[in-house]
């Protein structure tokens, strides 16, 4: 397996949020993490991204522990949080400039994933004036700047319209087909259908889950303690 997450633990004071979360995935996979609110899905993603420190566990990429090797982690992973990591007063282009080398930016806008995301349509618009969908597309565009092997996404299409959602999911498909690995936290049916592997987070642990498209069954499984 290219990515192996083993026994991740996280405690906030006395509250043990993650008691030993483990999963694995290969290049080209899309691993989805589902669960009710407050179970620690975003926390797990932020630990993998290096934003939070875990209280135990490993995250191996091709045998190397990313939690202990910040440089490798930075080269391998890109993280798109739930909110928008943008500089609000500046244009979309300025925001992209923070992450891209000028030559790569031009190329990606001409024929790369940025073009697929439709970022060139609002390059000169100030970030604070962008719609939710545009902001999300721009955030994903920024994360793709370093051509990561693994893309960590926290509810990437939540509250977006169907057209925007489809556009983003298409980009994800292309990313996967190019050998990228997606790890996404989701509540969305469309996103779940995109996933090649699904994991249900409950009681601080992950367990493989098979989504059949039956929402009632999913609801029952989510409510099960």
């Amino acid at each position, binding site marked *: 397996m290219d990515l192996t997450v083993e026994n991740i633990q996280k405690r906030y004071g006395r509250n043990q949020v993650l008691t030993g979360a483990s999963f694995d995935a290969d290049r080209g996979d899309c691993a989805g993490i589902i669960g009710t609110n407050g179970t620690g899905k975003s926390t797990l993603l*932020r630990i993998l*991204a*290096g*934003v*939070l*420190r875990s209280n135990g566990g490993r995250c191996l990429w091709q045998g190397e522990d990313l939690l202990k090797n*910040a*440089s490798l*982690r*930075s080269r391998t*992973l890109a*993280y798109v*949080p*739930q*909110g*928008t*990591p*943008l*500089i*609000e*007063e*500046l244009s979309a282009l*300025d925001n992209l*400039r*923070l992450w891209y080398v000028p030559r790569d930016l031009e190329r990606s806008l001409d024929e790369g994933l940025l073009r697929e995301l439709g970022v060139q349509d609002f390059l000169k618009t100030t970030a*604070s004036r962008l719609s939710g969908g545009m902001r999300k597309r721009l955030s994903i565009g920024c*994360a793709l700047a370093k051509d990561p092997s693994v893309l960590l996404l926290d509810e990437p299409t939540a509250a977006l319209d169907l057209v925007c959602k489809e556009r983003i999911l298409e980009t994800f498909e292309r990313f996967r087909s190019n050998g990228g690995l997606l790890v996404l936290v989701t509540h969305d049916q469309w996103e779940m259908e995109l996933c090649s592997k699904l994991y249900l987070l409950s009681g601080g642990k992950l367990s493989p889950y098979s989504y059949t498209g039956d929402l009632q069954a999913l609801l029952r499984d989510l409510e099960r303690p």
Partner: protein
Amino acid sequence: MRKLPSYFGLQLKRAARLLPRMLAVTLLLAVLSAMSALILSRLNQDDASQTRVRIGVAGDNGEEILSQALDLLQSVDSSRFSIGFERMEEAEGRQLLAKGELNGLVLFPDGFADALWYGEHRPVTYLTRAAGSDVGSLMTRELVETISSLILETENAVYGAQTLVRDTLPDQDPYRAGDQLVIRYASAILDRERLYTVELSDIGDSLSLAGYSLCGLSLVFVLLWSVSCSPFFSRRSRELGQVLSAEGFGAGGQVFCEFIAFFLLLLCAMAVAGLLAFLLLGRFGVVIPELQRAEGSALSLLPALLPPALMLCAFQFLLYELSGSAVSGILLQFLSAVIQGYLSGCFYPSSFFPESLRRLGALLPAGVGMDDLRAELLALPENPARVLVWAYLLLFLLLSLLLRRRRNRT
């Protein structure tokens, strides 16, 4: 750290976007500061309209000599700028006293002047407001009592001298000798300017009032200016900080870039305000003695202001890091500016405060800045406050860094 140049560049761009708005606030603050400086400065200049203690004189109607004596006193005595006597009707005086427009009212009984000619004493009434415990009332009451004693004792002395001349120098005219004594007395003793010397204690180790005001108002400007910078801080994205940290561009780099951009904004504002102050002070002919001695203008204060401004800027940055929202940020900045400005003697000399408050004020960032600026303006050979300025700067930046690191991890 590969992100440092691009992040710094973008922070500068953010700052530049906010510049027009900041400059508008700067203009407003600078004009207000200059007006305050002007008023303070004019208060200190010779101008009959700037009387600080106003005393009404009423009674003894029909007696011209009292009015003439008052007119004479007002026109020959330079202390009229501090104390002004005004002839008025008793009813009007009582009304003005009740409104607080008079500090005191002296009531002369009818026939006072005639009685005085014949050596008869009729008590003069001094009216003040109910509490009468403010410094002005206490001083004027004391003054009236002193003058009453002086008149009575002088009168006794004049009569005594006349008797002495009559008994010991029969060839001399005792009345003429009495008149000469009175004239000498009036010119030598009753010249109120010579009755007291004014020493303004602790207005900055011999800083002039104008110099002190310039230091204080410059720091108040720096303190208040940060209120207008809330958009620079409130619109920052916490997620951006977190993602940057995850990418290896940590809290240190982020704080450094943002702080420098914030300080450059302040520099622009200071340059504009300094220029305005220079023009306004020049236009109204206000002279800062310390700068004049060094052959400098208001603009030459700017280099001296840089270290304290840098330190205060770091303090404001820390406050914005502490605040969770735009509203709390603005409130924190404003309250900090007002409280610090007041306790550190930027608005009013701190020597008027109790010792404990003075000590506290001197330790506040604005107090340290005030001491530093004062030492620079006076060109003192040693400036111990400068060490504190750098220490505070490092402390505030370090605290900001720790707060940012914490914020990025939550």
